[in-house]
């Protein structure tokens, strides 16, 4: 099943998407992950870790908004 696209009322700000990614990592029980991000995806993980105490390596690709 193909996931649905984001709705018109979905918050796509960096903070909202970063919180969403942190919730995803928490749900997947990922304490240490490498993040490869592109474009605005890099902006949500550029300056702060996904979760307090979580160590991560960020590889950024073609950042546009960070």
């Amino acid at each position, binding site marked *: 099943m193909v996931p649905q696209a984001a709705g018109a009322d979905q918050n*796509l700000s960096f903070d909202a998407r970063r919180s*969403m*990614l942190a919730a*995803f990592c928490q749900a*997947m029980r990922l304490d*240490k992950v*490498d993040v*490869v*991000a592109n*474009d605005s995806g890099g902006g949500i993980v550029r300056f702060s870790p996904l979760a307090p105490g979580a160590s991560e390596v960020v590889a950024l690709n073609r950042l546009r908004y960070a």
Partner: protein
Amino acid sequence: MPPVFGTAVLMINILFFLLTTWKQRHRAGKRCRKAGARDRQRRRHHEVRAQYSGFFLAAALVLHRLSLRSALATDIVCCSRRRVRRLARRPSGQALHSMEVVAGYGPPYLALYASTPFGSGLGGGSLRFGQSGQGVRALAHEISPLPAQRFRIRQTAPRTHQMLTKQAPTHEYKYVPTDFGNIAYREAGSGPAAIFVHGVLLNGHFWDRLIEAARGCQALHRD
């Protein structure tokens, strides 16, 4: 469609140019004789005629595979050259009446001139309703006396072989419930986890090639 029409149009054009070239040269020679001068343009007329002869000779060599499209190309190349040269002789700033293009020609030449747009129409119709429908590329293949393999454009492999349509077996959408709703993701490989985050207006397939190239590590890409 058999190349009968194209051959006929081509032959009419050949006849047209031979006659007009001869008449032009004949007029120039007559004027020179009247004036008692030497026809200095005679060599030039010979050159022009030699050019036309060479072109038609080359066209005749491939006549067995000429069609309407070839006739159209011949018509455009030859007639346009002559018309442009005729227009170029006009002093600048003067409007050109359509009949002035053919002014000075008798009925046989006017009839031949009239056949030219007819042939062009046939050729254009063949381009529009032809069987191959390959356009200019087919035309280039057709009128080329060289083997078609020389001009065959290198075909790149279909992109379906390059893209990750042959996805890894683990590339199936999974969903994890969060406070923001169910987040779809796909998982591939094994080992330390890496998350691939795409930008806005993209989706997880942005990373497909990279995921396949980076086999050996566990990858989670959100969608």
